[in-house]
């Protein structure tokens, strides 16, 4: 990293937890959480009538995980200086 890195350049690395190993771990943990939630969603759907509120709540959780960890939504509103 140089002194002239743009926020985008810095965030490329910072956004992945500061290293490839950390990024790999985060990726797997989030994927397994998503898979588990999908399985729970499926089991609820086949075993429970009137499941709309629970199913939508699980979908919101899954979207939150993807948005927060995979899309780095928090970075969209950061100024850049705080990411170094």
């Amino acid at each position: 990293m140089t002194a002239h890195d743009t926020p985008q350049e810095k965030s490329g690395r910072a956004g992945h937890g500061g290293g490839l190993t950390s990024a790999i771990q985060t990726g797997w943990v989030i994927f397994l959480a998503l898979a588990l939630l999908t399985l729970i969603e499926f089991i609820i759907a086949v075993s429970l009538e009137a499941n709309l509120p629970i199913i939508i709540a699980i979908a919101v959780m899954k979207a939150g995980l993807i948005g927060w960890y995979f899309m780095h939504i928090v970075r969209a509103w950061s100024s850049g200086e705080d990411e170094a």
Partner: protein
Amino acid sequence: MAVAAITAKERQRASINQLGLWLFFLSESFLFAALATGRFYIDGLNRPEELSQVLGLGITSILLLSSLTAYRAEAAIANGDRTAFSRFLLATIVLGVIFVVGVGLEWTIAEFDPSDPFGTAFFTMTGIHATHVISGIVMLVMIYFLSRRGHFSAEKHWGVEGVVKYWHFVDVVWVFFYPILYLVSW
């Protein structure tokens, strides 16, 4: 002085890129929210028995897995690992193609008609979503060939970041469409 001016300009450009992308996602969200709402308006919470649950769960798993490979590709280029980047990008492309084939298969075996209330919602929602997946695949292929020409590095990879974010966004849309079409009941 000149370097500081360039850095400030690049910083501003990076912020504008991010803002533009998220505004695009916001505008797309309105389209998909309208489609999701339309499903309930047209057919309530009706869910036909002949809908293939196995296929629905299968293609959902494929798309979730593709988000992991896309994330790994972005992490790889951010850390300067071009080999891993190419490998995970190709894996994402292949998984995307499998998803589209799965949707096509669902369309082929679906026993409900497009003119049925549920069929109208189902074919519209999956069709528009699949179009977005196909456009994502096209962009991933472009990124792959650009990377082979050395366009991206650990320092400069906004193109990769933007396309991967788009791919995750398409995944988020399916996270809602899958239960709305396949799972909900009342």
